[in-house]
């Protein structure tokens, strides 16, 4: 094949075929369009205002490493006026997270950003290694997911930031749309494509890479020689997501626009008011002050099960009844420190605004 010239500058040799558009472009134009599209995503959604303190949820993986690099660059190039931080959660998985945290520590130096690492051990008194040794490999992802979500908010509160940005990319969001359809989870389907989820008084979360293809993120990291860590979690990965992922990659191979098309489909769904009305009103966890749709938040429920040696009580109704039958939680039960949102105000929150 004869080398193609870049469709944008018409000068340099094309080196990337953009999955979203099929355009063939050179390396420099690829950097420019990738960065500019993320900037457009940020400005069109009005994600930030000058003076915002923003934490980048950093795992050491490709998405968050590229996000940290691009956020720093755009903040300087377009004068967003943001104060940026790296926030990492240490789940306590030997041989997985300890290695990836070394990458985050290097990123801290390379990008000159303050880093906060919050561990499950510090917050909950349990590492994932300890949790898996008690619950086995079947339901451990439930614990990890619930604990990580809350740990990110708590780490953000410690940094006194207003906003957390995460590296979720277009592929991740399209996968989530498919999973919510397959599970019939209409409430989540209605909100999973939102670029920003926000409760009143709680910490905003957003996804500046919402429209960025994984292929382009990996190409960007490769051409920029960014330092990232890649491995699989040593505990069984989310099998259901794995199926959605393989299906999505097959669709992408046949028609690369499939990913962005699925996101657009997800955005176009309108959830009827009657369906929205069945969603639980958010309240505050009686035990730890974190937002919750029940008297106890999910993390406190899971932690109580672990502490009382009945870990499944947070997973199945049957195990929960068994736990309740044994009486109320003992007074000396280990609990999560009381949550104080950065604003200091009361935490009355809804999970998202549409």
């Amino acid at each position, binding site marked *: 094949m004869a080398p193609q010239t870049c469709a944008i500058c018409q000068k340099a040799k094309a080196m990337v075929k953009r999955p979203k558009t099929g355009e063939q472009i050179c390396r420099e134009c690829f950097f420019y369009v990738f960065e500019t599209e993320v900037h457009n995503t940020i400005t069109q959604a009005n994600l930030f205002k000058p003076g915002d303190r923003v934490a980048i949820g950093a795992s050491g993986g490709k998405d968050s490493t590229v996000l940290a690099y691009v956020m720093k660059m755009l903040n300087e190039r377009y004068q967003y006026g943001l104060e940026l931080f790296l926030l990492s959660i240490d789940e306590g998985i030997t041989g997985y997270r300890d290695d*990836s945290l070394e990458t985050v520590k290097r990123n801290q130096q390379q990008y000159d950003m303050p880093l906060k690492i919050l561990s499950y051990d510090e917050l909950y008194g349990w590492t994932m290694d300890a949790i898996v040794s008690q619950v086995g490999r079947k339901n451990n992802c439930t614990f990890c997911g619930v604990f990580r979500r809350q740990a990110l908010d708590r780490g953000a509160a410690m940094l006194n930031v207003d906003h957390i940005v995460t590296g979720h990319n277009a592929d991740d969001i399209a996968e989530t749309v498919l999973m919510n359809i397959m599970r019939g989870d209409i409430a989540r389907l209605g909100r999973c494509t939102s670029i920003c989820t926000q409760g009143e008084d709680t910490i905003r979360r957003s996804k500046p890479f919402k429209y960025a293809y994984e292929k382009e993120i990996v190409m960007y990291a490769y051409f920029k020689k960014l330092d990232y860590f890649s491995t*699989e979690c040593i505990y069984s990965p989310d099998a259901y997501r794995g199926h959605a992922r393989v299906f999505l*990659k097959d669709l992408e191979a046949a028609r690369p626009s499939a990913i962005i098309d699925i996101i657009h489909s997800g955005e176009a769904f309108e959830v009827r008011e009657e369906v929205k009305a069945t969603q639980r009103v958010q309240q505050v966890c009686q035990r730890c002050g974190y937002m919750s749709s029940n008297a106890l938040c999910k993390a406190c429920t899971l932690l109580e099960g672990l502490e009382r040696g009945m870990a499944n009580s947070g997973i199945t109704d049957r195990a929960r009844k068994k736990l309740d039958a044994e009486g109320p939680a003992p007074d000396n039960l280990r609990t999560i420190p009381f949550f104080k949102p950065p604003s200091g105000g009361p935490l009355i929150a809804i999970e998202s605004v549409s």
Partner: protein
Amino acid sequence: MSTDSNTMFLKIEFGGGLELLFSNQRSHRITIPSTVPADNNTSVTTKDAASPATRPADVTYLLHHLRDHLLKEREELFMENGTVRPGILVLINDTDWELEGEGEYLLKDGDEIVLISTLHGG
């Protein structure tokens, strides 16, 4: 560079977690024949000449070679239907292989092929 015109020297680089399937080694230097069996059989050399159907070595042949000679585990995470599994990016001399004819690209002595998995999370 190869001095023998019947073989060629290639630089192979794995990334994004794909190296885990290849002895956890990112960089490999390999030599493959310049002319290869049309059926991608990597265990015979064309010098055996019993098999008349041959073609110049291309990326598809290289993928079979990597699978048969360098891959240490979980073949299904590397190849599917005679090509790389969807989600693995291939660069030929730093250019997206989609611009170079993908598997049909004819290899040249000294080419550098990079394979990166996008399937590993963070």
